[in-house]
């Protein structure tokens, strides 16, 4: 698969072409054209990114489609890109969700052109981050996400947007700068910024502990893990629908992806050492945030807390260190990328009509919006983890992985499934059943064509992943297997050495 065509760079920077066109857009019908150009760009990017899946060889465990050239030679900083079976899915998730976000952004009427530019820049940053194999490049894209996201929350957000934007930015910035210091230490120790050269426990034990903590600070905030999750409800609630979708769908996955790539692959011993702590935090996250979600009166806030709970399964799976757990974690992330995005879109549908996210403002909508109720139900059940939907496979596997390591942790985490069912079903009952006694709710029309266009692909993906997860698993299986076997080899060696 040594094609000389720089496919990954093309996918990364293709959205910027759209940005350039948008920059020179002038005229009366600017908003409509901005939407069209942005949608076209993101769709083209998606189609091109499917090419990655075509040329990607699932049988090979290492990085593929490598691109490499000197960027800042005097500091040995290189431009290195490459994907393995895991990052392929995240790239596709990003390119798949961006057109949907742009479609849902049609309701935005304020500064449409800038909105579209922000999303296309964001897409570049996301794809760039998932394909970067150089530490500086990785950090560049990881942090670069903050600029468009800060503006998306701050300019197009709700009433409390300014507080939310600040909190989002400063919280993640603080986490990231600690990671930057860790990157310095790693780069100096390894003498290179090439991430592949840092994999496999090249760092001495004591240093690895500190490095792990610094990276964990950044990824745990991004993910977010309890107790670093407090920015998320604000950001989700205040962000415009498209912002929440991309935040839940892709940005949260950056933390999980980083944990696999850096914590597990580069710092295996420290990961094994800290795994019990991660288990504890994850279990607390699952149970505590599920309980908090039960108490929410705001729909978006409820889904935001449920995201924190779902990310708990991801960290459990990753740090279980075995193949089942890791596969489960990746599947939970992919599934959550579809489901949480879809749920935020669902909330967006009624928010656009009623301009309220209060659960109490709704009720009985199954009567007048049957299609919407059906769509919502699919995603609600997927979020609960019903077999046959995408949510089930990942949660099952990650809990199985944890069970092999710590049965108590798995037991406690399983209670989260029950709680998850409770808050989601209760949310569904409050919105869709009961008397349809509010006039404005009764007056709402059902889904329109644009909304179908957003939901149908997502429903298909959710069912596909639920019914035939092997399609997804086959691509990353050998990569995951390599990562976990390396990890286990490293950690058992480390255990025997002293």
């Amino acid at each position, binding site marked *: 698969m040594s094609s000389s065509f720089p496919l990954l760079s093309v996918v990364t920077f293709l959205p910027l072409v759209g940005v350039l066109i948008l920059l020179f857009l002038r005229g009366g019908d600017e908003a409509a054209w901005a939407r069209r150009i942005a949608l076209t760009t993101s769709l083209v990017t998606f189609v091109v990114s499917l090419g990655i899946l075509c040329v990607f060889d699932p049988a090979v465990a290492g990085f593929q489609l490598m691109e490499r050239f000197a960027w800042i030679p005097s500091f040995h900083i290189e431009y290195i890109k490459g994907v393995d079976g895991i990052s392929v899915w995240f790239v596709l998730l990003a390119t798949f969700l961006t057109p949907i976000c742009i479609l849902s952004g049609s309701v935005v009427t304020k500064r449409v052109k800038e909105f579209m530019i922000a999303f296309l820049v964001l897409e570049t940053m996301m794809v760039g981050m998932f394909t970067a194999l150089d530490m500086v490049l990785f950090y560049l894209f990881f*942090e*670069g996400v903050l600029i468009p996201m*800060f503006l998306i929350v701050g300019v197009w957000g709700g009433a409390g947007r300014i507080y939310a*934007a600040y909190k989002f930015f*400063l919280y993640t*910035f603080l986490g990231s700068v600690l990671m930057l210091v860790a990157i*310095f230490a790693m780069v*100096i120790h390894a003498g290179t910024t090439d991430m592949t050269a840092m994999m496999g426990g090249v760092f001495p034990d004591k240093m690895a502990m500190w490095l792990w903590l610094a990276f964990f600070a950044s990824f745990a905030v991004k993910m977010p893990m309890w107790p670093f999750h407090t920015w998320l409800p604000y950001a989700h609630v205040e962000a415009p629908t498209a912002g929440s979708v991309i935040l839940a769908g892709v940005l949260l996955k950056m933390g999980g992806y980083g944990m696999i790539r850096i914590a597990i692959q580069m710092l295996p011993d420290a990961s094994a050492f800290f795994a019990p702590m991660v288990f504890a935090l994850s279990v607390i996250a699952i149970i505590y945030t599920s309980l908090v979600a039960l108490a929410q009166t705001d729909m978006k806030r409820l889904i935001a807390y449920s995201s924190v709970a779902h990310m708990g399964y991801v960290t459990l799976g990753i740090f279980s260190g075995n193949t089942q757990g890791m596969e489960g974690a990746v599947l939970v992330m992919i599934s959550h990328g579809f489901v949480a995005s879809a749920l935020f879109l669902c909330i967006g549908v009624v928010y656009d009509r009623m301009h309220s996210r209060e659960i109490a403002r709704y009720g009985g909508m199954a009567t007048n919006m049957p299609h919407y109720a059906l769509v919502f139900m699919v995603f609600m059940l997927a979020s609960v983890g019903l077999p046959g939907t995408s949510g089930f496979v990942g949660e099952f596997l990650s809990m199985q992985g944890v069970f092999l390591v710590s049965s108590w942790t798995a037991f406690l985490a399983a209670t989260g499934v029950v709680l998850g069912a409770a808050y989601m079903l209760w949310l569904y009952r409050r919105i869709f059943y009961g008397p349809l006694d509010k006039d404005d709710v009764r007056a709402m029309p059902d889904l329109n064509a644009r909304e179908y266009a957003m939901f149908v692909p997502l429903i298909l993906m959710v069912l596909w992943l639920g019914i035939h997860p092997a399609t997804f698993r086959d691509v990353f299986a050998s990569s995951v297997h390599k990562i976990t076997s390396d990890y286990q080899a490293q950690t058992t060696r480390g255990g025997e050495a002293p």
Partner: protein
Amino acid sequence: MNVENIYATFPELFLASCALMLLLFGVKRGNDATLFTGLIAVVVCLAAGVLLIKLPSFVEPGQAQLGVSALCHGCKAFGGMFINDAFAQFVKVLLLLASAIAIMLSWGYMERHGLERPEYPALILFATLGMMLMVSANDLLALYMGLELQSLALYVLASFRRDHVRSSEAGLKYFVLGSLSSGMLLYGISLLYGYTGSTGFEALAHVLAGEPPIGVVLGLVFVCAAMAFKVSAVPFHMWTPDVYEGAPTPVTAFFAAGPKLAALALFVRVLLQPLAGLEHQWVQVVVFMAVASMLLGSFAGLAQSNIKRLMAYSSIANVGYALVGMAVANEAGVQALLVYLSIYLVNTLGVFGVILCLRREGVMAEKIADLAGLSKSHPLLAVAMGIFMFSLAGVPPLAGFFGKYFVFLAAVQAGMLPLAIIGVLTSCVAAYYYLRIIKVMYFDDATEAAVDPVPEFSLRIVTGGAALLMLLFVFMPTPVIDSALAAAHSLMPQG
């Protein structure tokens, strides 16, 4: 010998004679010729920059014929008092660029405020000359002369708007405190001379290689204090906010760029060449000043409502980051410092370009709140300002990130991990006030436009060019980084 002197100092001689002629011309023609003298001054700066870069290469072929061997980089002149190495060249090119931009920034402002005097560009040229001599000084006395030439011009520039109370106050404050620091510098120099019997940098370095007597340490402290005043490092920063706020905005822009860079470069040279033997003594001082500047600049900036004052605190914090590179005291540190300063210079000139566009009914609007709604009325200006602010906050992929990256990398590499951690944490604090400007521009609804309809052409060129440089640095970082490496290399004792 004479020919050598002229070649080595040719750009400076060119600048000096042009400045004198410009002054004569300006006096003869009066205030009408201001724009013209300004234009000439810009051309002179750029020409001097070209001379600086090109001169060694076109002299070289004739080298053998002339019988002089030291015409290349790193040559010394005037009995070793003047040195024109790669370090000096790098800094001088930046200085000339900053001066040219500062003159360009002043045109509209001076016209509106009735300050069209031909002395203005001439004074900037004299200040630039002083700065170039500072950077090239290889002797304590040459250093002092350069510094005074610069300072005297700057005192006048600070109070250039002499019918304005704040401007006069700024000039007076700067003058009084500046003379104090000059006094300290002289006292320190006299101590160093008294104990070593020399003022030349090589001789000093030679004498000070061993364990220093206490008088030398005292002299070192005085010299450091005076330098800290010039670069406005904590605890000698008090003048900065007042002078930044009071001085006419184009002058503030100049202050924030040129003199700061020159003083930092001078500081680096003095510490790393003549005083290299005293590293153990001065590193503590520099580390303290770096930490204190980063902390104070970041936290005190949070409470500011005037954008010029905010930029003053921002500059204090940025000097702190630059001092981190100095504290590292090796080639990597100096390289990082030079990269950092080059980026900061362009960044800060761009910010002042935007500030100069802010004007309500002909009066400069200096409150941060005056930026409200800028993204609606002047989207391009707002985008430029946004780029500058994110860059100052150190968010990748903008240039400011790379400045911080190299500085802190050098610090970690030299085992100064706490310094790097304090640095990144304070940059988080400072990010808050940079974000506030973006918030005001983009998130707040405009009450009324505080910006004149069409900014002058020169302002648009400067802000647009600076913003593009900050944005595109990521694609072409090597020229700056490599020439900074060469500059840093030339500064280090060749072993």
